[in-house]
């Protein structure tokens, strides 16, 4: 009886933890990716004022998300995103379109990579 209680409790714990962490990261990555798409479009249109506003929104959201992400994913991934955000800030200030677009795409890739890593997939298991 005691063994079965342990088994059931452990399975419930794992399922709950998986659901909470997956939902948390999926929600956050979707929001950041949408905001990054907006930022990308504004840079393409040379609308740097709106792009700056997009950037500040992303940083504000990111600062909230990264506290919970630190408990769930490797801190190296968070550092990469922080690094990219710093680069984007500088290129936005310099209005360097080519570099900005490449860094935004790279940041999008990093964010989507986090999402891919958290999902239950065969390639993630092996």
């Amino acid at each position: 009886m005691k063994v079965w209680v342990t088994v059931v409790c452990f399975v419930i714990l794992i399922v709950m933890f998986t659901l909470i962490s997956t939902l948390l990261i999926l929600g956050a990555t979707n929001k950041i990716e949408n905001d990054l798409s907006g930022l990308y479009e504004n840079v393409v249109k040379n609308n740097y004022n709106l792009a700056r506003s997009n950037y500040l929104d992303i940083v504000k959201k990111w600062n909230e998300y990264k506290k919970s992400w630190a408990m769930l994913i490797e801190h190296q991934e968070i550092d990469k995103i922080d690094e990219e955000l710093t680069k984007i800030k500088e290129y936005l200030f310099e209005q360097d379109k080519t570099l900005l677009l490449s860094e935004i795409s790279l940041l999008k890739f990093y964010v989507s990579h986090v999402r891919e890593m958290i999902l239950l997939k065969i390639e993630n298991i092996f």
Partner: protein
Amino acid sequence: MVITIFIRTLILYVLVVLVMRLMGKRQMGELQPFELVITIMISELAAVPMQNTGVPLINGIIPILTLLFLQTLITFGSLKSDFIKRLVCGSPTILIAKGKILEDALRKTQYSLNDLMEQLRIKGFFNIHDIEYAILETDGDISVIPKSQKRYVTPADLGIPTKYEGIPVSVIVDGKVKEESLKYVNLTLEQVLTEIRKRGIDNIQDVFLACIDPEGNWFVQKRR
């Protein structure tokens, strides 16, 4: 950074001690193959997030708890089913039967003759002539059954009647009364006090060790 590693180490240490306790006393003694694997893996899993602050603590905690879960399942399974027990623990192998070394069994278990002789010597048997059976147990230990003429003489062999022997019970340890032990030997605190006063000690706090054997003999030592 240093304090982070310090706190992580504390958390993981408490977790590993807790997990080892939950795995039961068997985990501390002779290990079965699956228990050895789990113990090695737990130590490795705890060490990585302990020193690398870039790895979330949960990456260490979840695998450790998963191993505890697996160990509980396997132990339960091997208690309930002989098949599972054989599958995870293997079965004992007879290396010497009726005084003869079984070469096939040695080959199968990859046990050399030197290893066998060494283990027999450790067990106190220096002459292979004296051994009737030697069994390699699933935890790697060897059980030896000597020939009847070579085994130790027991009171039963000599026909000597023996009386019941229990175990001595410690009633006071390092100045503290063990309530459970008092209940076990059916003694009251007053009776214990009377005994220690007989030996010139007035306070329980002054007693280093007081124990009583099944025949009612007391051993009392005063604390310095």
